[in-house]
């Protein structure tokens, strides 16, 4: 189940999109997400679809892989669609028992679903083409100005990248502990919710103890390697905009302008 989530996963390739600066991709993704909620006409969907397909093609990430990421949000998608479908008032289309489906409801739920799917695909395009480290570097740099108002930007970025490094390790460890407890007769499957929650205790306690020990070790190892916060630190891979990043920004501006222009004109 956990392994099905492709959101936040990196798909190694050497494409144009992969090589873009993480800041470009972060800003671009944000602009793209905003743009999804700016239009309300049919042509808009065509423009967004074209844009998205273009980005996917350029990224060389297989379409199948991207679709897999949608599995994780299927529940959310269903709920949104059902709510919109049955609870929107308007001209009735179909009526049965206590439910009515209206023309407006159908339209809204359909477009809502498309927007949600596009939102997930769009943001996973960013994570699929950017390593977690680049992503945190990009965030750190973009949020840099917040340092002036005492937001610990560097520390937050460091925390994120350490979390990303340890997620697979802790997953593996959870698996190991689970097997060890099952071997001793623990039962994680059967019983009602309360019983299931209780059965997690022998899993979580050792996991937490080990996580704290790791945290302690890691802090010591970082200190031993002269880590003392962001002050006076240089970067092995400093972020530098390339020609392609300026091109990408130009494309984003054009795309954004097109969406807004269409909304005004139509």
């Amino acid at each position, binding site marked *: 189940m956990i392994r099905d989530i492709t959101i936040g996963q990196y798909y190694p390739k050497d494409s144009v999109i992969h090589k873009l600066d993480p800041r470009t991709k972060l800003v671009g993704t944000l602009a793209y997400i905003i743009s999804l909620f700016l239009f309300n006409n049919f042509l808009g969907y065509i423009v967004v679809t074209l844009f998205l397909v273009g980005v996917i093609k350029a990224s060389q990430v297989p379409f199948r892989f991207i679709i897999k990421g949608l599995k994780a949000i299927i529940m959310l998608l269903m709920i949104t669609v059902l709510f919109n479908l049955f609870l929107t008032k308007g001209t009735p289309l179909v009526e049965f028992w206590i439910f009515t489906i209206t023309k407006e409801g159908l339209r809204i739920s359909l477009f809502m679903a498309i927007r949600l799917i596009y939102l997930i695909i769009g943001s996973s395009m960013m994570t699929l083409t950017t390593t*977690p480290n680049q992503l945190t570097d990009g965030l750190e740099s973009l949020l840099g100005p917040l340092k002036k108002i005492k937001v610990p930007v560097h520390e937050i970025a460091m925390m994120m990248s350490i979390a990303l490094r340890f997620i697979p390790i802790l997953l593996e460890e959870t698996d190991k502990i689970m097997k060890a407890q099952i071997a001793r007769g623990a039962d994680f499957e059967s019983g009602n919710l309360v019983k299931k929650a209780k059965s997690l205790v022998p899993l979580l306690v050792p996991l937490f103890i080990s996580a704290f020990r790791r945290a302690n070790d890691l802090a*010591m190892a*970082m200190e031993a*390697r002269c880590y003392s916060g962001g002050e006076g630190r240089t970067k*092995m891979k*400093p972020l530098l905009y390339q020609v392609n990043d300026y091109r990408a920004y130009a494309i984003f501006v054009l795309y954004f302008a097109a969406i807004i222009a269409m909304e005004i004109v139509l």
Partner: protein
Amino acid sequence: MGIIKSKNLVFEYIRRDEEGNVEAINRAVNEVNIEIKQGDFVAILGHNGSGKSTLAKHMNAILQPTEGDIWIDGKDTKDIDQLWEIRKTAGMVFQNPDNQIIGTVVEEDVGFGPENIGIPTPQIWERVEKGLKAVNMLSFRKHSPNKLSGGQKQRVAIAGIVAMQPKCIVLDEPTAMLDPNGRKEVIDTITRLNKEEGVTVILITHYMEEVIGADKVYVMDQGSVVMEGTPKEIFSRVDELKQYRLDVPQVTLLAEELKESGVSLSDGILTIDELVNEICQLY
């Protein structure tokens, strides 16, 4: 003065109750005097809980002495202003390979130390390349540390220290969590660093086989240094070693048994080759 020198070094772990009253005192390092020469390969042996890690943490100024002093390259670790200089001089490799790798890509992890000490970007790349070459891991530079074997992870950790160009490397049981292959990889790597690059190595271990090539061996027990000398001198005192709950290498034990039953062999035989040579000369 040697690169590391301690005088009557004492460290106590103090446990306090909620009101801050002292509940228990555990003297983990007790009146330790050591002196380590620049360029030497020094091994510290000892049973679990004998205070090896506590002593090691003093060499990197992670812990400060309760009493006594320790100098790293002439700098007193109690001097807060010298803290970063001391940590640049003495790098430290820990036992658990997973818990000391910070980067999500091998080369980024090796670059972490140089980044911290403010090395300019082009030099960081040079140092990373040199560091990875020194541990034979250059071809793995783009890999994720999670996919490496224990021995490889430990070599990456060593590369991360080498990239900071320390004069001395302290390794606290770097092989304890590794299989025999990984153990050999790591020991070969640090031996090479010591011989070819002239880095002072302080290897903490409880595998006796790993200290055979050392220039000097310290044995610790209950916080004190109880034996010191060359491996030959140390291993000729088999009974004493057993008393400190250390496992003597098989060959040495065999030689000892043979000697007891009347074969005239010299003291402290450490390797199979040595034993074979001596026996061949007898007949």
